[in-house]
């Protein structure tokens, strides 16, 4: 369960929120010549990015407001939240990776063990 920082109410448990899928999908204006494929892109197709994504949350049990958040779908690390209409904050998403290229903390079994341990790594 995540801690979601509602831009209006502050940090709350995920159980108070509804998830609304990928953020920043613009609903296309009606056009008579819009193709089925264009429309389907809006209704059905998703980036489903493996990496940092912007996603929608709604504070269902609290203020009822929709807002967006940035999260890595690799690690589930949360980078921040922002209001509808605002630009996503710039975040430093350079995450430590293993030699195999998998990010630390991802679900891949290759990264439960790290090969090298430098002093001070063990926190």
């Amino acid at each position, binding site marked *: 369960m995540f801690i979601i920082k509602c831009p209006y109410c502050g940090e709350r448990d995920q159980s108070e929120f*509804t998830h609304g899928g990928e953020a920043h999908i613009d609903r296309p204006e009606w056009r008579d010549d819009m193709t*089925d494929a264009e429309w389907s892109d809006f209704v*059905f197709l*998703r*980036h*489903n990015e*493996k990496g940092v994504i912007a996603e929608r949350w709604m504070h269902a049990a609290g203020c009822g407001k929709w807002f967006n958040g940035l999260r890595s*779908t690799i690690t589930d690390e949360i980078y921040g939240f922002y209001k509808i209409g605002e630009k996503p904050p710039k975040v430093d998403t350079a995450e430590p990776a293993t030699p195999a290229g998998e990010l630390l903390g991802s679900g891949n079994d290759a990264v439960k063990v790290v090969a090298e341990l430098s002093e001070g790594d063990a926190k």
Partner: protein
Amino acid sequence: MRNYSVMNLLKQGLKGHKDWEPAWGLSTTPKDSYDAVIIGGGGHGLATAYYMAKEHGMTNIAVIEKGWIGGGNAGRNTTIIRSNYLYDESAAIYDHALDLWKTLGRELNYNIMMSHRGVLNVAHDEGEARTIKRRVEANRLNGIEAEWLDAKQVKEFCPLVNISPDVRYPIVGGSLQRSGGSNRHDAVVWAFARAAHQLGVDIVQQCEVTGFKIEGGQITGLSTTKGDIKTPKVASVVAGHSSVMAKMADLKLPIESHPLQALVSEPVKPIMPCVLMSNQVHVYVSQSDKGGMVIGAGIDPYCSYSQRGGFNIIEEQMAAVMELFPMMSRLRMVRQWGGIVDVCPDASPLITKTPVKGFYINAGWGTGGWKATPGSGHVFADLVANDEPNDIAAPFTMERFATGKLVAEHGAAAVAH
């Protein structure tokens, strides 16, 4: 020693088992080129390879797996197998799979512990009952074994379940597919790998596909963490990672990857004779041959590739178990885990060509693709070999999302396992 049998087991027993060969060979690096490359060593990918080799004579092919085979959803699923889906299109493919399951162990010479112990889907109110009855009747007319049971009959089939009318969500009845059941998921993966290997297929583990070579709209090869491979045909069967593959070919899919969790209790002596699923009291329960209650439920609401989900889902799942099986509270959860399920908006899969020639996708099985494994591999092999979907695969193209011809299986698939 290759062939598995009681006789050979006895012989090897006396020899300290020293002659058993590596089940699926020891390829550690891919060759420079193949006639086709299958990405993803899950159940579906390996089945695809097996049927390509067996039925289409394509033996110069490889399965490329980024981790260990069966480490994706194949290794995480609760193995509920049934074919009682609503629409003709789904019924056809799932029942095709169920038919193959029945003799698969023998065909592959590997005991996959296919147990046709019966799957119950219970209903808790009139609306649910109506939906289930509709499905049962559609199944019957499609020649798929299914029946409607009233609450008493549900209890007879699964004596453990609570059918008392004064619980919050009383059971009013349910559907039963007697030929449904479960099997040993890892064994299926290993069996397909072994059989494919014996037909000449290379199975390469710890090798991640990182990009495609596309020339003039035609796929010509791919790059991996173990070097480049030339090939005119690439079949992506990577379940949760399908969008990642698609992106490498500049495509977007109607798929979202969600965590789906499951858990198993400590082993106890057999008490649960069948698989029982409830949509409204969102949970499903079966008992593994080892004795653990294998319990699953719904997806986490967000997208993630982390193979983990929230504990709240597990908590709700357990409350649901108690509603159905109030004697289970003293059993203990020994392990929980998560997979990455590729969810399509209509709860039906994609078995499809793509705008890139030679690039095929099999994905979108979401929370319920295990049951389809052999059927999916079988028809997908056909598509990859012939560049045309056969009748069973045809409804599952990507175009359906533009035309609107969806195969909406939410009703059948809601706790879709």
